[in-house]
């Protein structure tokens, strides 16, 4: 076995990036129907990803990020003008939005 260093993240061996962890545990792995119904669409934090859509759908498409188009839940939401507001509230609540917006 080599001594290859497997950094768990770009933070010099710190804990893995939360986004990487969430992407894996919420979106991958075998899905088994349990007794407790857990609807991951309830996780509004994930819709933070929609920031890209709000910022520029074209840009997102360029990057190959067009997954919402096949998702009736998200594309229906995306029609509404309230989406942006909703996201802003969610992100603020989640502490995901930094001060960048404030300095306009």
């Amino acid at each position, binding site marked *: *076995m*080599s001594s*290859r260093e*497997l*950094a*768990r*993240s*770009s933070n010099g061996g710190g*804990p*893995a*990036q*939360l*986004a*990487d*962890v*969430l*992407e*894996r*545990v*919420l979106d*991958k*792995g*075998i*899905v*088994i*129907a*349990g*007794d*407790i*119904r*857990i*609807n*991951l669409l*309830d*996780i*509004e*934090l994930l819709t*933070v*990803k929609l*920031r*890209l859509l*709000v*910022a*520029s759908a*074209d*840009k*997102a498409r*360029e*990057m*190959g*990020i067009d*997954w919402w188009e096949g998702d009736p839940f998200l594309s229906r939401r995306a029609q509404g003008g309230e989406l942006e507001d909703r996201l802003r509230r*969610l*992100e603020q609540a*989640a*502490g*995901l939005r930094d001060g960048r917006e404030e300095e306009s």
Partner: protein
Amino acid sequence: MIGAAAQTAWYVYGVVRVSDARVAGVDAVEHGALAALVERVSLDEFGEDVLPERLNDRQWLEEKARAHEGVLVRAAVAAPVVPLRFGTIVRERDDVASLLARNEEPFERTLALVDGRWELGVKGWQSEPAVEDAGGPASGGPASEGAASGRAYLEQRRAERRRADVAAGERATVAAAAHERLLARAVDGVVNRPQPRELTGRDDAMILNGAYLVERDDDALGREVDSLNLEYGSRGYSFELTGPWPPHNFVVGDDAA
């Protein structure tokens, strides 16, 4: 807090071979050749009525997601493990055994696939800020009303779009070439959606979000990442290895139920 103790249920992290049941240091329920890595949880936390709220509590979600991942990582570095999706919960301990029985086939197939292997991640980044348009004028800013300036504005937008197209084409080409090379060094590989900056918290744009299943004692993927960095570094691209991860991206089959 008054009255009966909180109701509990069984949270299932993943599935291992019965001989590896102790590998993650958590409770295990055995059934035949398989063992489920489990933990008793309170329905105060994981009950259907409270989950929607909990899931949107960022701190709670992070803590639980990391705990889920932590158990699976401990297992994965030592033994083949089948990661289950976050939040797989059954009421009774006996239900865990029937869950194993019901899904024996996909579990066995996944264990066979990941035996002696683990998942590594490779992220590709572009340091040049991707095409700046920040959505600003597209929404009809307070620009002037004049026809001439309107035309100039449209032309500017068109030129921006052309530049964006060229840049996007280059990014896609680099990402595809990198993935192909990485895949050649792995047992299997998948490309996931690049994460937006809002999730990465970085100024660099993610151009590749790949996951690769590799033999544990094989360094080839890491070396390929090094050579990608050498080759593409001068053009503003960088590649980063993450993991080892439990093989989330390489499970075979889902519950038919």
